[in-house]
């Protein structure tokens, strides 16, 4: 498959549904090693994304991604807002002019997204953040050759689970030091939901 404007819209429509469904769950993760707002933040942001996407017209995938980015940046706040916003902004810039987005372009897009998050957050893998899901997913895209044969969802799920074992060194969870071990990182969980939604779009278009 290739990702068309309507696929991109469907992707984020599904992300919003999942975020809304998991709002309390995400907040509860943030209650343990954060400040109890991650689900609230994400739900506020993606609801607004959905409001935008369902009423505006877009020329190309990059426009959708940019709308997502700008909306998250201006509606989410906290750490996750600028980070997810930067991710989709970089993604958008990488695929600008390419429509629909083929597998290779998509891969460079999420590579750029990951770089954007790492640069913005001054963080790397193994610090118990959303990067610990983004990075293995990017790797999975680099290894595979098309959307359909790419086990990125399994990879994402495992990566999310594995954040339990990490001691946080970035973000709010770092204040808990050793006590942060044993819990899933909230941003990792929401990143997983984003890729779960992507998988459904891919499956649906088969």
């Amino acid at each position, binding site marked *: 498959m290739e990702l068309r404007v309507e696929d991109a819209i469907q992707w984020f429509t599904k992300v919003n549904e999942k975020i809304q469904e998991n709002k309390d769950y995400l907040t509860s993760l943030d209650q343990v090693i954060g*400040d109890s707002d991650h689900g609230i933040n994400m739900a*506020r942001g993606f609801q607004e994304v959905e409001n935008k996407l369902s009423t505006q017209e877009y020329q190309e995938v990059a426009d959708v991604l940019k709308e997502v980015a700008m909306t998250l940046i201006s509606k989410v706040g906290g750490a996750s*807002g600028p980070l997810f916003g930067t991710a989709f902004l970089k993604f958008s810039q990488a695929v600008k002019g390419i429509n629909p987005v083929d597998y290779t372009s998509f891969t460079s897009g999420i590579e750029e997204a990951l770089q954007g998050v790492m640069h913005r957050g001054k963080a790397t893998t193994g610090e118990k953040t959303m990067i610990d899901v983004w990075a293995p997913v990017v790797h999975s895209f680099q290894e595979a050759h098309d959307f359909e044969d790419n086990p990125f969802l399994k990879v994402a799920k495992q990566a999310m689970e594995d954040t339990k074992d990490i001691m946080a060194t970035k973000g709010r969870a770092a204040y808990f030091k050793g006590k942060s071990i044993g819990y899933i990182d909230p941003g990792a969980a929401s990143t997983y939901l984003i890729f779960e939604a992507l998988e459904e779009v891919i499956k649906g278009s088969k």
Partner: protein
Amino acid sequence: MKKIINDPNLVVQDMLKGMVSANPSAIKQLPETTVIVRSDVPTVNKVGLVSGGGSGHEPAHAGYVGKGMLDAAVAGEVFTSPTPDQVLEGIKAVNGNAGVFLIIKNYTGDVLNFEMAAELAEAEGIKVEQVIVNDDVAVEDSSFTTGRRGIAGTIFVHKIAGAKAEQGAALDEVKSVAEKVVANVRSMGMALTPCTVPAAGKPSFELKENEMEIGIGIHGESGIERKEISTADEIASELVHKILDDGVHGPGDEVAVMINGLGSTPEMELYIINSKVNEILNEKGIHVYKTFVGEYMTALEMAGCSVTLLKLDDELKSLLDSRSEAPAFLV
């Protein structure tokens, strides 16, 4: 969850409305933003001071907007740093062509959102500088992590940088005095109860009837150590010693002291803490120049307090003493 609110999603909006109607001549809200500014912004040829952060820390930060202190305070959702576009509105509104100075508490969210706003402002040709406040000694000071949090010590940065700017100092001078405050201010907090984010509806952790948390922040996150409640004197001693162990304040120094209530601690208890803090500092030969007791940087209705010490020199003393019209810090 018992709160005097209308709708958990509207608390910030309702609060800002109430703030402006309480001080309609001194402050105003920028239309369709969560930014509170001095009524007279931009003050031409004065460095504009912008701070802010998540809501739930009232009177921080809008209470510190006023002549001699902040020009703008940007409010985020409860415990959530505000977004770059809001911060940008604040920056633009206070830019009187002498540049804008940002006072940021060291949280990933605050740093990222304010930094993005600064980038956007610079792209519009506004000179922006910033300081990051990280006074909380409860957290390890490590270059491998996010490092220490900004808590009640931030108010001293607002006051002193605000006074400097009011004197007509240049952007780099404001920055350097703010950095001096950051280098000399340390805080440490404790809590008896958690607090509840309105939209979350339940407290972020639980404490038994006989337990307290030492080293707690201002966002309902649990602290570094949970133990049995001790006496006020023991609590005061533990907080002060943890600060003194950081090595910034010692015999012969002059300090400003802040005993900050986190939300539901009666002022009576804050004064009981102050009594012991004062006694310990006297014993150590540390001279108390000025003391502030009250609610300056809260965490909703959390019960507990923090102690802040700021080492002073002549410049800081005179800036601390100079006039401020900010409702929450009148001097």
